[in-house]
């Protein structure tokens, strides 16, 4: 069974998903960070494939993307870095990125590589649902890779129902109309949105992302969904880290309130 599916069968709440950018701060930090997250108790890890034009991302992740590219990071190199991480690394792994580098690598070749190294799912925000369904769904399924879709406060209920129908694993619930790292905290308006989605009784669990940065926001988000995703706040941790493994461990523990 896919490790993401398995995770949500076993764990129904307080699922912590952490995003980081591959090849950042240093080119070879990818696996160091991955190991530290696995050991410190992150439930799910989202590895960002750096891109020159990340239009859904704010300054923090844009900067990490640019540094990683300047370090020489590429899709090809990421698969080399991830080769052999299983079975030592247990945590389910998502790759997050923009569609163009994946298209250039070749969709089928990309999914095949994901399966080989033990990646479980993909988040490709600028891959439209209809293009996925028409052209790529069969390929993803062939290699056992889940495609994670996003919903936002502006997504219509009809579309949410459709996304729920074609989703497996979980749905990425963007907490507000924004790019990553733009806002912090959770407002009453956002809580109303979370409640509205909960009332829809979707078949897929949701993880809330954007604006989650610490124990308070993680706990609040987790009370409205299966868990939450931290991105920009974690990038800041690795940017300022003196000892990557120790600082990551401390951050994850603090978010989980341990």
């Amino acid at each position: 069974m896919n490790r993401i599916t398995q995770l949500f069968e076993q764990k129904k709440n307080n699922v912590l998903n952490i995003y980081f950018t591959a090849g950042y701060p240093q080119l070879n930090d990818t696996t160091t960070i991955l190991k530290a997250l696995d050991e410190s108790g992150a439930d799910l890890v989202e590895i960002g494939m750096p891109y020159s034009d990340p239009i859904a991302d704010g300054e923090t992740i844009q900067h990490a993307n640019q540094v990683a590219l300047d370090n020489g990071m590429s899709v090809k190199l990421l698969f080399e870095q991830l080769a052999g991480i299983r079975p030592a690394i247990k945590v389910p792994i998502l790759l997050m990125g923009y569609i163009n580098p994946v298209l250039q690598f070749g969709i089928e070749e990309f999914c095949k590589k994901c399966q080989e190294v033990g990646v479980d799912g993909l988040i490709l925000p600028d891959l439209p649902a209809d293009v996925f369904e028409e052209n790529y769904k069969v390929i993803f399924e062939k290699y056992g890779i889940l495609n994670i879709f996003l919903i936002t406060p502006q997504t219509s209920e009809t579309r949410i129902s459709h996304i729920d129908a074609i989703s497996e694993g979980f749905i990425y619930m963007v907490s507000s109309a924004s790019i990553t790292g733009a806002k912090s905290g959770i407002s009453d308006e956002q809580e109303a949105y979370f409640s509205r989605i909960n009332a829809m009784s979707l078949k897929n669990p949701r993880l809330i992302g954007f604006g989650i940065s610490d124990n308070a926001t993680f706990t609040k988000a987790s009370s409205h969904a299966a868990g939450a995703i931290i991105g920009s706040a974690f990038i800041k941790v690795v940017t300022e880290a003196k000892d990557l493994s120790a600082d990551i461990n401390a951050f994850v523990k603090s978010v989980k309130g341990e």
Partner: protein
Amino acid sequence: MTTAQQYNVNEKGYYGEFGGAFIPEMLYPNVEELKNNYLSIINDPAFKAEFDALLKDYVGRPTPLFLAERLSEKYNTTIYLKREDLCHTGAHKVNNTIGQALLAKRLGKRRIVAETGAGQHGVATATVCALMGLECIVYMGEIDIERQAPNVARMKMLGAEVRAAKSGSKTLKDATNDAMRHWINNPVDTHYIIGSVVGPHPYPDMVARFQSIISEEIKWQLQEKTGTTNPDYVIACVGGGSNAAGAFYHFLDDAQTQLVAAEAGGHGISSGFSAATTFLGKPGVLHGSRSILMQTEDGQVVEPHSISAGLDYPGIGPMHAHLFDTKRAKFFAITDEAALKAGFQLSKLEGIIPALESAHALAALEELGAQPNETVVVNLSGRGDKDLATYMKHL
């Protein structure tokens, strides 16, 4: 046999294999709203009347189709210049911004965001926002802010807020990224006026329709002057390709008219400093559509170079990618040097200082090989006032 349908957008938003709407979910409702409404709004007689009246009385249309006699003599053929440089604000860009601002008002939006390269689209956007009482924010690459200072001043005087795009190459591509991010952050009350035939469907088609007034006028003006609606060639420069889309639009179906696109060759296509997308690019996705794109093997977008800020873009509109792919249009890569030379030449031969962008179209005359009995229309997309500092460096 060809049909217009073959070169125009299909129901799914594609030109052949190019186009589509590759956008994050955050933009989906906005783009969907546009897609569901743009045709009914544009085709509404009341909208048309308002749009046409503004083009006539505010922009100064129709723009002249001028027989450039001395230039014709130099190339031993017959050359007409479509004088988009005489539009209010100094370039064709205003045709599109008037159309989109009217459309935004009908969608109930009160704020406009736009990107700009040379500043012409930014000025045209700031202008219509002033005219229609809309709030206006323009993103412009930090480098472009420096090299196009007069246009920055104009935007500010018109009441727009100019924000510097500081990421990546700090030019048009990055200004577009930041404008899209702004739209993601303000999805309800803001309309994004894209300045070229790029972006997710329906933008390429919508912008091409607003610019199609250029070829509509060329047809009847040429008929008046020569007794035939169709020239042998229509030449236009292509960055994203909005003036070319407008100049080509009503000729797409007319196989007897050769469409000619002049891309920015920069220092030369093999120099590493170029923006000649069809020569250096391959299919890929940027800014919401699948098109031809300058990129690395890893799919990272390459930073382009052109002396002309308006052509300094690593992609082209999906319509042009399709015209290239089907060989309906012939593409030339014009170097910075050739464009400068053509700009100086037109100034001295005809008393018209062209924008550096338009100078690329003029330079294509050198390579075209038009015959004495043939007729060429060059779309003179903008005037050169904004480029004087660059021209002076090379005088």
